[in-house]
């Protein structure tokens, strides 16, 4: 005389049910939702190797070169502009012109072959981002790109997810700065950011555009 199941089966059954619930609810639903918010997915804080070991710390931090010297299109084009090789040689014709680190640059110039950079801040092809208007309206470089002056190798500073974009498109006053501070990596608002932001919004005619075609066309 004995029962079909052992007494321990009760516990086993309950544990199994809970495990199943966790596996389904957690693994299939919560898991992916958490994953897409982690740097593993967004590729933040993931320094990208480049064909040329260009060090922003040195150029921006030490030498104090303005962002717009190399990214010279940022005020007039959708693209911020990755500098043509000739621009590198403006300086490097004179200085470090024998450095082996710069060999790929010289090779590019003399062979007339573009340097193939790896893109760091990737947007999907259906997103149309325009640098010029953002810079014009007082969005600083550092707001999206982070402290590039402290990056040996450039890495993605923000998730660039749509929700992140919307945050600023809905509340620009939280992020705007005066136009003359755009490239300042260490800008701190002198007074309350919200007050400045609201004033700048008025001054620059900043609209909170959240219509889809603002970015998707």
């Amino acid at each position, binding site marked *: 005389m*004995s029962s079909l*199941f052992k007494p321990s089966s009760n516990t086993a059954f309950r544990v199994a049910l809970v495990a199943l619930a966790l596996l389904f609810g957690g693994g299939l639903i919560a898991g992916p939702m958490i994953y897409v918010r982690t740097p593993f997915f967004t590729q933040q804080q993931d320094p990208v190797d480049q064909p040329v070991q260009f060090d922003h710390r040195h150029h921006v931090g030490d030498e104090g070169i303005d962002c717009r010297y190399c990214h010279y299109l940022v005020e007039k084009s959708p693209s911020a502009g990755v500098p043509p090789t000739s621009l590198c040689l403006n300086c490097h014709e004179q200085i470090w012109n024998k450095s082996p680190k710069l060999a790929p640059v010289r090779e590019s110039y003399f062979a007339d072959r573009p340097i193939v950079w790896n893109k760091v801040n990737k947007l999907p092809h259906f997103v149309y981002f325009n640098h010029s208007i953002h810079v014009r309206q007082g969005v600083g470089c550092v707001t999206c790109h982070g402290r590039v002056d402290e990056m040996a190798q450039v890495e993605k500073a923000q998730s660039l997810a749509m929700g992140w974009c919307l945050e600023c498109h809905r509340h620009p006053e939280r992020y705007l700065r005066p136009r003359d501070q755009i490239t300042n990596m260490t800008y701190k608002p002198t007074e309350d950011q919200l007050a400045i932001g609201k004033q700048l919004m008025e001054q620059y005619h900043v609209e909170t555009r959240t219509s889809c075609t603002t970015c998707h066309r």
Partner: protein
Amino acid sequence: MRRFVLGQFTEAAACVEAVRKLREQGVPGLDAHSPRPMHGIDDALALPRSKVPIVALTGGVLGALGGYSLQWYLNSKAYPINVGSRPPHGFWTNIPITFESGVLIAVLSIFFGSIFVFFGLPRTYHPLFESERFRTACLDAYWISAETGDENAVPELEKKFREAGAHKVHTVVERI
């Protein structure tokens, strides 16, 4: 170590009657087992009103409220978008989902509430299953059982069971 005294009946009515009698005699831990619901057994066991309807109502109301507020929040607060010039908060268009989520949550509450709380299932092992004869309880026989922790009370209970008309009276002991 719990013990269960078991007794079998062939007729449901007799079973119900026996339960009533035993309860009136003050036998503790009484229960009946049948392949189908027996008429009058609730009375015989003096069971209180089931709380399932309350659970269902609570679930339904919460579900409906949740469904409505979800729609209201997402379409008119989280990201209000002009959709065909309709107002972002569409009361009438929120009704179907409110209803469906109410039903859904109510159904889930009833089902899981019954299974997990009211039935205490899953319980694949129960001391009663130690009895091979008890298998008929889900087939074609009617059983009564009484739970006791006291080994010495068993003979007395078995006697009472027999007196109430049960046959095949026997006792099972919980395995641990």
